[in-house]
């Protein structure tokens, strides 16, 4: 029996662009369905980032409209039908550019927030 999860506490508002980047990054490791993506983001951020369904699904459909992900209905391991999203070639390029930009932002913010000069 897994330990009971805490109630949703630290809900960090994720900017739309950042959420897109996280989703693309998650899909880098293979196609995944919506629930799986939200679990993945949650797990890999150490339970800090818990994406609302009200943000996740609109984001997924938006990414699909823009052509960065593509969707397909497949069978899961437990033989259920689910909608899997996968990264497209264009999406991969987009992810790379977003990673670069993110690194820039992180450095910039760190430069301001650091205790030295």
């Amino acid at each position: 029996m897994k330990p009971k999860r805490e109630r949703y506490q630290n809900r960090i508002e994720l900017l739309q662009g950042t959420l897109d980047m996280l989703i693309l990054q998650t899909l880098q490791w293979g196609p995944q369905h919506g629930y799986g993506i939200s679990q993945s983001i949650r797990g890999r951020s150490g339970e800090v980032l818990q994406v609302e369904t009200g943000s996740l699904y609109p984001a997924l459909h938006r990414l699909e409209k823009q052509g960065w992900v593509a969707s397909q209905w497949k069978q899961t391991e437990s033989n259920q039908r689910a909608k899997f999203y996968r990264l497209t070639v264009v999406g991969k390029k987009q992810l790379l550019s977003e990673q670069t930009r993110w690194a820039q932002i992180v450095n910039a913010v760190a430069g301001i927030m650091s205790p030295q000069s």
Partner: protein
Amino acid sequence: MSLLNWLLHRRQREEELDEEVQVHLRMAAEEHVEQGETAEQARTSAIREFGNATLVKEVTRDMWRFRWLESWLQDLRYGLRQLKRNPGFTTVSIVTLALGIGANTLVFSVVNALVLRQLPVEKPERLVFLQTKGGGISHSFPNYRELRDRNYAFAGLAGYRISPMSLEVGGGANHVWGYLATGNYFDVLGVAPAFGRFFHQEDDRLPAASPFAVLSFDCWQRRFGGDPKIIGATIRINRLSYTVLGVAPRGFHGTELFYWPEVWVPMMMQPLIEAGNPWLDARTTFNTWVIGRLKPNVSPAQAEANLNLIAADLAREYPSANKGLLFKLARPGLVGDALRGPVKAFTTGVLGLAILVLLTACANLASLLMTRAADREREIALRIALGSGRGRVARQLLTETFLLSLAAATAGYGLAVLLSRLLSAWHAPIDFPVQFDVTPDGRVFLFAFAVSVLAGLLFGVGPAHHAARGNPNAVLKESPKGRSSGRRLALRDTLVALEVALCFVLISGCLLSLRGLQHALTMPLGFQPRGVAVVGFDLGIAGYSEEQGRNFQRRALEAVEHLPGVRSVACSNSLPLSTDQSYSGIYPEDQPDLSVSDVHNAVYYQISPGFFATMGTRLIAGRDLNWHDSHNTPPVAVINLAFSKQILHTDSPIGKRFHYGHAGPLVEVVGMVEDGKYWALTESPQPVVFKPILQSYNSTTLLLVRSSTAEAQMVPPIRKAIAELDPELPLYSTGSLEQMMGFAFFPTRTAAVSLSAFGVLAIMLAATGIYGVVSHAVSRRVKEIGIRMALGARPAQVLRLVLARMGALLAAGAALGLILALAGGQVLASIVYLVSPRDPLVLAAVTATVFILGLASCWRPARRATKVDPMVALRCE
């Protein structure tokens, strides 16, 4: 994703979205079960964690393409459902608006047909009609020839004249109307024949040497059965043989929009067509209408200048005929400006009033919509509270109004098409072939569409904005702030006041037109039209010489005189207030050298003795003409009072003398009759001279018979009597004298009919509008009235409460309407002849009507207010 793709896969996408959500919930529930919850608990937790599934789906859908189209279709479906749920409101709205749009479309299609439409020829905008500066529309034929040969500005100048003829078809002679046209007529117009060919310039060189004819399409179909062998065949016109060259194309009716001739004959045949009156070389007979096609790079101003240079030359060369001659160009189709001016003023005036009717309908509808929106306050408040944007709500209300206006536009356009077909088929009640083609074309359709869109915006925007503005919190809590009462009625009040004002203007138009009609029907005409039967024939086109014709006229008069019931008979070449009026220039004895511009023109009639008795015209001085006044005795004439005053400048003209035309013989005045109306009902007194037929013969003969028998029953015996004298003489213009004058009353009658229709519409609209508003106000305040009555208010006080506001609005609306009616007097005057638009009697009547209308509309709701049972009112809501 393309639009097609989107349309085809809408349902599939919705299902997939649902399934995706379900899958997520299921997986989340499984997770909870793994953590030790029961299946039931797990499901509940999963749902709770997911959040508002509907909202999630909604936001997700917003990410899809063509979202705007989707929501717009949603609005449409919802709107249709709402309208279907209130069939009463929907029907009333559509009918109201359809009448408004239909009226406007119909009037605009008349405007389109008469004022905007061009002749069906090649490049019609390059055609111009020649007038003289003083407004004269006809020219002498020699002048025309000079203009044609000497000008530099025109590619071609053609002359034409409306001409009655006798056409023999299948053994019988028919009186038909046609054109005498110069050889280049069809070439100048740029028309191609439907069959055969037209005559050209070279066919029209020598007088009486070109017996050709061109038939109109309708004539060919109707009289000759559409037989293709008619080309080259011989037909008989005025008892002479003519060869048919060709048939004009369908829809081509010559150069005047309202006159639909049956046959064209070359101008050189004039001496045979109008036997006994050849004027092709007469410089002082102005019978030719001239139309021209401008050369490609010449402007109308340049052409006018060129023509006036020639005019100056003509005035020098032939001063007696052409002194002071100046030309002006006008648009062809309605006899230059002579008819175009009044027609334009009339139709645009009526269009203005039709627009007012539409505005009233829109005000009515806006008020209705606001009422309905007030009833849907809770629904709207709920939707806003649940998260719908205000813009979305307003947009949805607007969609409903556009559905209404589109439906109304379709119905209105259909109605207008129907009525315009009827109007086009209508034939003026005279022998002259007047017909209009007012069926709507593309321009009219665009107009109807534009009007419906504007109407929709007009009556939709206000209520939509008003409704979406509400405070949902207050409405849902039913606090008094949320209810529309007191100040919130401001917009609806203005609408009602506006409606009353518009209604005022329309009713005043209606009453003025009716008064004008009454005026027209009872005004002194200078003769008594009732009781006189008329039968007409043209001896010239039937082949009679002057001698034979005179003889026949005398014998016809004698034959008819002895019919039973006949009191008096006479004949004349024309009737007052008919379309055929002739003028002659008068030179008084002491002023033989007046210039063309100074000379007075008098209308002349060539009458037999007994004319005045038959017509019922009063002889003021001197004597009537008698059979002794023949071509052996000195020329005499009878004149009217205006002639005596304006031309002879005397009150006792008996014995005075004058000339017809510059070089005519001296004529002595032997009698004077009262003034009357001759050209139009609105004219001021004009001089008239009556010539005896024995001294001045005219082959056109109208037999007038005053009898004690009804006119319709008098006609057959007269026809029989004439037929006994000449069985092959075609008769026309048969009927009562009142019928012959029908054309003179046409504008007044039309104005009365259309303005009355508008007035009735306006009354209906205003009545329903006021009723609706007051009714709604009462039902809204039922609770308040109940409390007041429970506390002891008397019915009179309740009435005052309910009606005070309405009374103030009525007064405001009437005042505004009065100002509008007075200000718009100019427009009304162009429609309503014979009456001043500031007639105080009419204005008083209108004010009274509006107040009665207002009170009558308030009556039932007000009574309902007084009958409120306080207990019932307080209990229910």
